[in-house]
């Protein structure tokens, strides 16, 4: 296993009111040690579900990892017992959540919430944990005196810093950052991202960064995967995707970007809506919105999609589309 993280053919479903939500449909991704992979895609594409599957923290009721493999540092996480996962979560792999306003327990001091993860993995006695939690707070730019304060006494940006401090407390080798700045004010976004990048570089952490912000991808990531309706429609290095996008969806997203040198650009919007995940179109999931769609894209009557399984157009640059570039 050469890659630090390798996801193969991951399929995840939710059950909701007797409907099956096809949230992740055969996703394969890989990430090298110390590298950063950007996951981009519209809301509901399945990005958070992929991250939670890696941590194995999908809800007990209504969520199911149907098939696939998730190899982290040579071990398949999907074959681990719950007890073995306890040691991996928070220590080897940690996650920063999308919404800092609800990610912290309102009844516990922020310091104790950081200590909790330290006591689970790194340190044995309470005093030392409090000391280290104070250090973590300072590292993310919060005075250590605020250890004893509660989440409601913090602003959104500071809460997200606490969440980041919590995620990084045990020096994780893999960090899953799920839209870490989406819920924050624009002025704070840059600060928080800067901090995540610095900490990542300092600890040589591998990272999956889920974001809507192409500027952030350009500044932070080594490679990018574009997710659409629970599938990777295109993946490759940052340069591949910014300079030679091949999938019509990627082109649509990156469409208005003349070059990646122009930063701070949000994803371009594309006409139409993403498909209903309980009832995905046959063939290529994107065809109803695709300007180049042909009959072949719609799949055959059996629902199969010959030839849409993805191809490598240049080494390391994959695209899931029939159209020749």
């Amino acid at each position: 296993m050469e890659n630090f993280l390798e996801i193969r053919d991951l399929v995840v479903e939710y059950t909701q009111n007797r409907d099956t939500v096809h949230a992740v449909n055969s996703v394969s991704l890989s990430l090298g040690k110390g590298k950063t992979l950007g996951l981009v895609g519209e809301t509901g594409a399945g990005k958070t579900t992929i991250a939670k599957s890696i941590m194995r923290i999908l809800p007990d009721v209504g969520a199911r990892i149907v098939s696939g493999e998730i190899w982290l540092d040579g071990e398949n996480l999907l074959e681990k017992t719950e007890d073995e996962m306890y040691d991996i979560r928070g220590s080897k792999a940690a996650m920063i959540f999308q919404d800092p306003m609800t990610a912290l327990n309102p009844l516990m001091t922020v310091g104790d919430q950081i200590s909790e993860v330290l006591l689970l993995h790194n340190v044995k006695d309470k005093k030392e944990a409090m000391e280290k939690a104070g250090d973590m707070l300072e590292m993310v730019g919060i005075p250590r005196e605020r250890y004893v304060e509660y989440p409601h006494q913090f602003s959104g940006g500071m809460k997200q810093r606490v969440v980041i401090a919590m995620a990084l407390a045990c020096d994780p080798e893999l960090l899953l950052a799920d839209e870490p700045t989406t819920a924050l004010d624009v002025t704070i976004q840059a600060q928080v991202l800067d901090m995540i990048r610095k900490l990542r570089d300092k600890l040589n952490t591998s990272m999956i960064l889920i974001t809507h912000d192409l500027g952030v991808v350009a500044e932070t990531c080594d490679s990018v995967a574009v997710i659409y309706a629970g599938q990777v429609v295109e993946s490759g290095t940052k340069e591949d995707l910014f300079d030679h996008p091949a999938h019509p969806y990627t082109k649509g997203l990156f469409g208005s970007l003349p070059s990646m040198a122009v930063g701070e650009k949000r994803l371009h919007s594309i006409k139409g809506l993403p498909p209903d995940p309980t009832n995905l179109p046959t063939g290529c999931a994107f065809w109803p919105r695709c300007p180049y769609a042909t009959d072949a894209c719609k799949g055959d009557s059996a629902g199969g999609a010959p030839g849409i399984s993805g191809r490598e157009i240049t080494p390391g640059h994959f695209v899931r589309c029939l159209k020749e570039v």
Partner: protein
Amino acid sequence: MGRYVIKRVLWMILILVAAAIVVFTLMYLVPGDPAELLLGVEASEEVLAAKRAELGTDRPYLIQLFDYLYHVFLKFDFGDSWRYRVNVMTELGQRLPRTLIIGGFGMILNVVVGTVLGIFAATHEGKWQDSLTMVIAMVFVSAPSFWVAWMAIILFAQTLMWVPPSGISTWTCYILPVICGSLGGIAINARQSRSAMLEVIRADYITTARAKGQREKVVVRRHMLPNAMMPIITGVGGGLAMVVAGSAVLEQVFSIPGIGQYMLSGVNQRDRPVVCGCVVFFAAFTSIAMLIMDLCYAFLDPRIKAQYSSGRKVK
């Protein structure tokens, strides 16, 4: 915090005064002459007039009212029962332990069993354990307590003869009233704590706690339960109000000389000092319970505590 408590206590006194005025006025408006009710229609006019003077009912309404309020709130004297000539405060003191046993143990059963059932149902969401618990809860929420009490007497006292059907001769007399009095509350509490737990189970901070590698048992104990406590405490508060309402019915059915029964007999005999005394007592009991409940909120939730201490948004 201290200021908040003082403010609440002042409010409480105001509410008690209001309750006293309302119940006094209602009893005043009940048709019929109290003196005549006590002495019978054959009594001569002189005797009746003497009785009226003794009870003070010959004075105008406002004078009577202020006299009553003065005695209750400044001298802590509820007066004597018109019919039995016994001081209402003394009588309340004697009867209080019996009502407290039924109410207190009922409350404990209510909270413990109700909460445990609710958490049990929530953690088995959608499975048969959940459905069964909720169906049983539904039945007990809907069944009137006096009916449940009669059925229990017929089954456990008369047929099986495990416990006495009524009275207070031994401690076993209290078993049925306590259980019957708490069933409805248990059911309500189970439903309340189930939905509170379900909401908390889905909360983001629970996912955060799991993502730290925290053991599932600890996640439930440290993160879920305290957060689910808030709505559960609210349920307990509602249960307390039911203790008050329920004690009258239960004490009647099981012939327990408690405060609820005292109040009912007072109502039947138009015994104004008894009725007013019981109502004011129940109002005080409920207000104090509510205050304690609110203080529990503040103790558990730093957000509410912050609100109280800063003096803002005090209801």
